[in-house]
């Protein structure tokens, strides 16, 4: 139960960070919190429901790798945005404003 509450709280904290942070790198960091909490919750929930440990571990491993790739691309976009227009805050991106 401690783990369930902790993971839910961390996911919510990450979501709050994504919604309130202005700095692009801080937004990526907040997204990492959400991913990490979801992955731990996934493993714990699957193991507690009697899922195959090898399958759960391999699935979680693939999630870790996929999310590392996502972070690398996200950070590359941030560095690219900085090089193009010295933009590092989310408010600097007005192109997609509705």
């Amino acid at each position, binding site marked *: 139960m401690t783990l369930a509450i902790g993971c839910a709280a961390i996911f*919510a904290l990450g979501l709050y960070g994504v919604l309130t942070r202005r700095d692009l790198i801080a937004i990526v960091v907040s997204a990492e*919190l959400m991913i*990490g909490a979801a992955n731990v919750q996934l493993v714990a929930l699957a193991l507690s429901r009697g899922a195959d440990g090898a399958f759960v571990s391999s699935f979680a491993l693939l999630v870790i*790798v996929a999310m590392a790739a996502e972070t690398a691309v996200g950070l590359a976009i941030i560095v*690219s945005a900085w090089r193009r227009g010295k933009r590092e805050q989310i408010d600097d991106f007005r192109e997609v404003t509705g």
Partner: protein
Amino acid sequence: MTATEIALAASVALMLLGAIGATFVKDVTRLVLSLGLFLLGVAAAFLSLASALLAVSQIFVYVGGVLVLVLFALMMVRRGGTEAPRVESRHDIAAAATALGVFLILMLVPGPIEGVTLGEVAVDPGTVADALLGPDLVAFELTGVLLLVALLAVIVIVKGAKDS
């Protein structure tokens, strides 16, 4: 309270501490340190859940890889002025309400996590390797393709910015 439960509670505390720091601190260095703390907490949680392979992977990929990547990104994205770099936030009630709502949904929907004990569900890395090279081979190969695509994407994105 068993040793596993204490270890799990300690790892959750570590994760929470890191998450709170990563969400609320304004100093960039502390932000990265908090992320490191959180990632170590995740590795400890995996270890407590009897998956040493996942714990080691978490440390190698995230603490050793992603954290360094974030540090490099921070160094490359030059912060203005001579003052210490700060991370700005815009706290508002709507974001807090949304986060609280998601927290409540996550508490209600998945159901309780019970019965996870170290001895019963210990995952042998050999069986994980068998699974990755057996029934999960397609997913494993697709992950390799994903990593290659991500690598090419990073090169294209950063090179495009350099050319312009």
